């Protein structure tokens, strides 16, 4: 939950998200009349714990993925939280179904040394580490992970992983070509537990106002030319039939690249793969392999220029909000939710934000979701950061029980993915749903889980036989059914799991090998770190001014030459010398 710039993290969370959404409006009406018999008493831990400690009153210590500490041990961690997340009555981050289960089943008491809201988590981590108060385990971002490895303050987990990780936990590390395991392995040692990553979940889709298409008698796009025609029609032909010329064809804001209102998917349609968001670090760049086998930077390729030309034209024709350069994602979201813009490129989560309430609140509004289209006969590849983890759990070298986080993780993965237990995922108190899984002090993910679930839900829909669904999937199935029965609050759920929904399309990208990932898989090079931010600013200025027409399209070439001269060449040299080009 503490992720600020996660690139890929799906998990079962999409479901929680929906539950949260449904509950926003009625939030104030619940009172404590039902007296919540929910989780505390009837948690399944009660049953397992009895068999966990039959008569073993003597000291015991787990010797593998299972087992229990007796006497119990205490491990410390720190938490990043969101004040927005409402907790079920009686739940806290210190005491909840997870901590209780950990204590009763594993004999591990998890103590939060401190809790802070997500924005200050980095600062608080820094002051904690500077004072030498490092907890037993904690969540850090990829960059801190590198620093901690170099500083030599975190434990080598290679042996405890082999011994204590359950098979399911191991498969979560080793699925998708061991992507997560490789990322966590430094110099042959496993140094961290990836919190996310492992699948291309950041690929983009096209979202289009279906009711506007219908109003204008248009078909969903098959090519990029169709996309442009739709954008133009949405701009000029009064798609909302209000008699005013007040609509725009394509959503855009000053971040340029993004899971919402980003141009990533637009560029991909022209086989261009630039990536350098205004608010990004300027160090996560895409590289392609040139004819000579060497890595080249994706952003300076001629295809980028072609796509920029199209965007400049769209802007000139009024299809892009004229002030896109000053608005951020929240403002561009407002333009869309207020019915001013009818199309956007975006990631799988767009149905959950910001367009989640439109179906319910705006009469007639509905969104279609379409895979990326291409400008020619070659299929469009959707770009992805490749599923590298953005966050890791690391274990202090001083920790007496470096194996404990794995035991916690085993339980987490078991309850959420192995034998899905709804009590650990969501609880309902007085008709209001609360997420439980976010309270777990550790988390992980099973790559490919969501596309699998979507496929299962759809198969069950077709056959009418739900017996093959696990509890998690049954939940999604029910949500789709509710939507079909007229429950408008389930719109976003339907868009996630139903046929033609985001997870189906994401799965198709993977199955059809329509995913582009950078050919360079290493960490940011020294020049990227030193020059990246200023080069990013230059690129963003170049793109913004070309789109807005304040610079001619050919300025692109000047900028590209400039990039090479002011640090780009050394970046390319470093990348090609790194041995990390695949």
């Amino acid at each position: 939950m503490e992720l600020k710039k996660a690139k890929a993290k799906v998990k079962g969370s999409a479901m929680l998200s929906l539950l949260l959404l449904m509950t926003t409006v009625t939030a104030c009406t619940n009172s404590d009349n039902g007296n919540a018999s929910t989780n505390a008493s009837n948690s399944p831990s009660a049953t397992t714990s009895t068999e966990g400690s039959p008569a073993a009153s003597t000291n015991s210590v787990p010797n593998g993925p299972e087992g229990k500490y007796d006497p119990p041990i205490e491990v410390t961690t720190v938490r990043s939280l969101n004040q927005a997340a409402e907790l079920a009555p009686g739940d806290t981050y210190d005491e909840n179904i997870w901590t209780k289960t950990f204590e009763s089943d594993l004999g591990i008491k998890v103590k939060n040394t401190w809790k802070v809201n997500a924005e200050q988590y980095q600062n608080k981590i820094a002051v904690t580490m500077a004072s030498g108060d490092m907890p037993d385990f904690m969540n850090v971002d990829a960059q801190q992970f590198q620093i901690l490895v170099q500083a030599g303050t975190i434990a080598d987990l290679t042996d405890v992983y082999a011994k204590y990780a359950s098979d399911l936990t191991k498969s979560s590390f080793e699925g998708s070509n061991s992507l997560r395991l490789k990322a966590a392995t430094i110099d042959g040692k496993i140094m961290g537990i990836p919190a996310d990553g492992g699948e291309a979940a950041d690929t983009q889709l096209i979202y289009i106002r279906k009711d506007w298409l219908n109003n204008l008698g248009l078909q969903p796009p098959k090519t990029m030319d169709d996309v442009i025609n739709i954008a133009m029609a949405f701009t000029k032909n009064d798609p909302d039939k209000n008699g005013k010329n007040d609509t725009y064809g394509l959503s855009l804001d000053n971040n340029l690249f993004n899971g919402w209102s980003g141009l990533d998917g637009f560029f991909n349609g022209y086989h261009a793969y630039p990536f350098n968001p205004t608010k990004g670090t300027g160090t996560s760049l895409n590289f392609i392999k040139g004819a000579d086998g060497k890595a080249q930077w994706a952003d300076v390729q001629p295809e980028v220029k072609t796509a920029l030309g199209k965007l400049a034209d769209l802007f000139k024709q009024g299809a892009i909000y004229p002030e896109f350069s000053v608005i951020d994602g929240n403002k561009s979201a407002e333009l869309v939710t207020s019915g001013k813009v009818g199309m956007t490129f975006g990631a799988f989560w767009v149905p959950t934000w910001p367009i989640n309430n439109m179906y319910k609140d705006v009469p007639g509004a509905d969104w279609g979701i379409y895979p990326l289209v291409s400008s020619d006969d070659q299929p469009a590849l959707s770009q992805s950061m490749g599923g590298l983890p953005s966050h890791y759990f690391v274990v202090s070298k001083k920790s007496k029980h470096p194996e404990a986080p794995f035991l916690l993780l085993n339980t987490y993965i078991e309850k959420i993915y192995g034998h899905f237990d709804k009590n650990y995922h969501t609880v309902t108190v007085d008709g209001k749903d609360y997420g439980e899984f976010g309270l777990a002090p550790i988390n992980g993910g099973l790559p490919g889980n969501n596309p699998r679930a979507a496929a299962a839900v759809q198969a069950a829909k077709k056959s009418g036989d739900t017996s093959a669904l696990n509890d998690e999937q049954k939940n999604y199935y029910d949500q789709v059914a509710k939507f079909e029965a007229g429950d408008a609050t389930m719109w976003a759920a339907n868009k996630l799991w139903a046929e033609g929904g985001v997870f189906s399309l994401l799965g198709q990208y993977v199955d059809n090998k329509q995913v582009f990932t950078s050919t360079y898989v290493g960490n940011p090079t020294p020049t990227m770190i030193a020059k990246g931010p200023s080069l990013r600013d230059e690129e963003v200025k170049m793109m913004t001014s070309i789109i807005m027409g304040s610079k001619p399209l050919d300025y692109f070439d000047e900028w590209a030459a400039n990039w090479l001269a002011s640090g780009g060449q050394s970046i390319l040299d470093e990348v090609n010398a790194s041995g990390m080009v695949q």
Partner: protein
Amino acid sequence: MVQPYSWSRKLFVVFNYTFLALLSLISILPLLNLFSVSLSSAAAIEAGKVTLWPVDFSWKAYKFVAEKHEFLVSTGVSVQRVLLGVSINMLLTVLTAYPLSKEAANLKFRTGYAWFFVFTMLFSGGLIPSYMIVRNLHLLDSIWALVLPGALPIFNVILMLNFFRGLPKELSESAFIDGAGHWQTLWRIIIPLSMPSIATVTLFAIVSHWNEWFNGLIYMDDPIHYPLASYLQTIIVRMDMSTISDPNMLLLLSQLNDRSVRAAQIFLGMVPVLCVYPFLQRYFMSGMTLGSVKE
């Protein structure tokens, strides 16, 4: 002594009233917008319909806040902080400003002292060492961490000492002749005469304690100890949602996307400190009368 107003004076008065009314209008519009948002429905806000009047009027957001545990608890922390912090601030400010208001001839090292204090206004060690000091003094997670590090606001000291210097010297001199010491003079003469300036500085102290949020976030280990400003900061930060691609986070945030509730909390968070000023204005007037009595 009522003078007949000249026409230019009349013109000025009309202009003056109009101009100030205009300034007030500009100043109150943002607040009005916030207030309207807090009284409107989420759908109306998302559709961009709310500017200066509530749309789909409802008190829902305020009812929600009234039951919101975190909001109430952190308000309590803030009140405690202001009471404790401002008392300490004022005590130390007056105690420090009074000696510094003396001439260098009457206080050895006066200039040295002054620069010693002013220097801390300009240089700071930054977050990490400050945190370590607070930690080593075992103040973490306690109200004292919010009160002690800023116990002596230097800016206020400088203001105060300048106000003190503006008082007629004959007053304290005559007090000395009557045998009063510095403590008595400060307590009996200087402070009563300085009510307008003390009110001003108190206002600054209240405002800064009420608004300060960063220390709350860093020094408290548990959000339940956050002062209101820190709590509000956690909901106010208009994170660019679009840069977050963690659906977990996103959904938690979009739940909060009920912007009327957010606006209601921000608005309520401002009310106490907005009320303080009109209240303190009384002392500005009383200062005037006190001044006129003595001549």
